[in-house]
């Protein structure tokens, strides 16, 4: 088991995270959503820490605790006053192997997860994303939503959840990251005490099959209630560990605006002067808003541009403006000043995120899930190393029509 520790003595707080290298990437049809449901079950207690006691003992310290399930990883965290953090350490070590998975709790949580999914289905954006992801990945498990398909949420059984838990919740598949107001020696000693006796599991199976290259542009429509047309354009992109990833981050910053790695507050920077916002929203007025996203993943994933179409324009008109901007990025390298600007934005976003001990602890483990901590530590420097020609090159290489999927949410206008 990997342990990452960072002392920060600015506030009497400690943030403690346990990461598992398992997410929807490790799921097969019939068991989609199992990682997320298992995450829910880890809040249902162990023989030593019954659920109600657990909640009570953490909550009354004023601490925050939660868990996240993602494509490649699942993580659990507690941020608490320093004098109470030992409870979190004990709890996480205990529930790594002793979670009960009580059958009645599994049954109740089935309806809770189904309710969570139905809540998301209320959102046109979710429906579009789900359809687009399925069109982008025929072979690789990134094709389904993390919450899972409704068919599987209705049919999976306790045995499926428990097997998943036993397979992936092992010290050799985990990472503990702690940041805050502690002494490294004693914290490390305590972690050794708590986890030292746990035996590693068998070799962790990896089921993700590589996605073959896309052979032409895919287009799809999702229809539903509402008055707002939403478009998502997604390009297949390399994994976070690929040398092209940092040029792509700069390219995204120029096209759709700066984005940091802050998960817990810190705030962002607006994107009103990004190339796509200027052309699509301000100059041509074909969109109401536009945002981009380039998630850091283990396997090749997607670079997405997401916009709300202007009610007075057609989707094709909007796409033509978007394509024009992409061509501009491909035809000539951006000015060096534009890159320096992106750098300054990245530095500021890092400074904002550093105010939160929870964020700092998150960064310790996050990059280890798809690369190594160095990826985060050298993030700004690696962005600085990107040359204008690199940006042009990756725009040429990845932003090609045959490499993309265009999804449109078409409202069945029932309002204004």
């Amino acid at each position, binding site marked *: 088991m990997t342990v990452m520790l960072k002392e920060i003595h600015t506030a009497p707080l400690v943030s403690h995270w346990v990461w598992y290298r398992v997410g929807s990437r490790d799921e097969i049809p019939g068991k989609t959503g199992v990682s997320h449901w298992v995450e829910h079950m880890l809040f249902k207690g162990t023989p030593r820490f019954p659920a109600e006691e657990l909640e009570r003992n953490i909550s009354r310290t004023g601490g925050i605790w939660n868990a996240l399930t993602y494509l490649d990883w699942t993580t659990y965290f507690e941020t608490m*006053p320093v004098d109470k953090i030992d409870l979190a350490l004990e709890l996480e070590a205990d529930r790594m192997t002793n979670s009960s998975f009580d059958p009645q709790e599994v049954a109740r949580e089935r309806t*809770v997860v189904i309710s969570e999914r139905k809540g998301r289905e209320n959102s046109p954006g979710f429906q579009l994303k789900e359809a687009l992801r399925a069109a982008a990945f025929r072979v690789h498990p990134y094709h389904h939503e993390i919450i899972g398909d409704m068919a599987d949420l209705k049919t999976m059984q306790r045995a499926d959840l428990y097997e998943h838990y036993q397979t992936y919740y092992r010290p050799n598949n985990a990472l503990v990251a702690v940041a805050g107001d502690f002494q490294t020696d004693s914290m490390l000693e305590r972690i050794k005490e708590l986890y030292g006796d746990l035996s590693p599991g068998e070799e962790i199976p990896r089921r993700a099959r590589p996605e073959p290259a896309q052979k032409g542009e895919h287009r799809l429509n999702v229809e539903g209630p*509402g008055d707002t047309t939403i478009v998502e354009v997604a390009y297949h992109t390399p994994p976070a560990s690929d040398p092209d990833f940092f040029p792509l981050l700069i390219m995204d910053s120029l096209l759709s605006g700066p984005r940091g790695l802050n998960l817990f507050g810190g705030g962002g920077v607006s*994107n009103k002067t990004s190339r796509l916002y200027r052309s699509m929203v*301000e100059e041509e007025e074909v969109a109401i808003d536009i945002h981009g996203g380039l998630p850091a993943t283990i396997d090749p994933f997607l670079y997405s541009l997401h916009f709300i179409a202007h009610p007075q324009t057609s989707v094709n008109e909007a796409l033509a403006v978007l394509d024009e901007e992409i061509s501009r990025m491909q035809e000539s390298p951006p000015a060096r000043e534009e890159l320096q600007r992106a750098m300054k934005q990245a530095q500021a976003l890092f400074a904002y995120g550093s105010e939160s001990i929870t964020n700092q602890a998150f960064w310790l483990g996050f990059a280890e899930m798809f690369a190594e901590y160095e990826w985060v530590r050298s993030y700004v420097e690696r962005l600085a190393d990107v040359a204008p020609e690199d940006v042009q090159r990756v725009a040429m290489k990845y932003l090609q029509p045959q490499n993309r999927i265009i999804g449109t949410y078409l409202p069945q206008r029932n309002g204004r």
Partner: protein
Amino acid sequence: MTSTQPLASLRKSSLPGPDDIIRRELENGITLLIRPNFNTLSVTVSGYLMAGSLYEPLPKMGLANFVSSTLMRGTKDHSFQEIYNRLESIGASLSFSGGTHTAGFSGKSLGADLDLLIETIGETLRRPTFPGDHVERVRSQLLTSLDLRAQNTSEMASLAFDEIVYKGHPYQYPEDGTPETASTITRDDLIGFHREHYGPREMVIAVAGAVEPDRALKTISRSLGDWHNPDQPAVQTVPPAPALEKTQRRHYTIPDKSQTDIVLGVAGPSRLSPDFYAAKIGNSVLGQFGMMGWIGEAVRNKAGLAYYAYSSVSSSMGPGPWTVSAGVDPDHTEQAIQLIKQEIKRFLDQPVPEEEFADSQSSYIGKLPLALESNAGVAGSLLNIERYQLGLDYFHRYEEMIREVTPQDAFRVANAYLDLQRLGIATAGP
């Protein structure tokens, strides 16, 4: 595991207090609160002024919000692109928002860039030009957000709740207006509202982060110290909420949705009310503590009916809502409402057990360092200190104040507001 000893005890020296909060009043009426923190590299500047939706005429509902959304679209000094280029080039951010009582703003930059941030706040507040093409662009954006709102079960249930519980009260109306009003507001309306209501009187600015107080004071004085608006009207207050004679229900139909949202409750205490803390801590037991308190336990954990089911007390200058919210399968709506009512009844029948109450008190106390971890958290708290006259020693007194509240206080306050025979129950879904 069942100790009732106080768990959290605050290290007062690390909390903002009279020793390190600098409070100054400028001659024109602006109050400044500054708290330096050189453990961070950035600085947050937040503030408000008395230009919320309370000050707009009803046929122009959404006007105050429209004005605040358009302030950064161009000033006498800079165009829209210039304003954002200056900010975004240095990784700074600034945004304005329209509330019921106030218009607010919040900006952030690296400490070294504070001057530019404050200059931008100054010029956008004082010298906006509301360019015609930008007014129309903002209108399109506002109308789209209203279209999205009309499809959002949670937001529409909240609006329906406000219509029942605040009928005839200013809180009945949404700050962002309706598609009809947003379509008819003119550029002259924006200019007129800004001229009349934007001014320094009663304005408050909080600065937190990597900045020397003297420098912040000088920069703000330079940008805003000579601002005057003799036309600024008196600060408006709101009346108490009307009393419902009996429970009222309203359903807002949004076809083809897979989940129904429920908002159920009453008008609660104002932030200025002596009932506030008792309501907050009592409410924590009812629907916040742990996995969403008693409501979460009943609706989510035991019945498995919802992913979220919680209660909240949203107090401000007036009688803000005290509500329970849940998202459920449309077929389970009635069952969920019954379970929620049962928990409210239990909450009203007798005082909360002391141990549970003490847990919520400890939770409130323990949360404070986390809430004050970021500069934005400190700046927001400084604004509340001024707005609700809590005193610069508020955080130092906080633990004692919370511990003084008893289960009997919470019981009395809960019964003074919550009444199962006089609830507003709003649902939105298929």
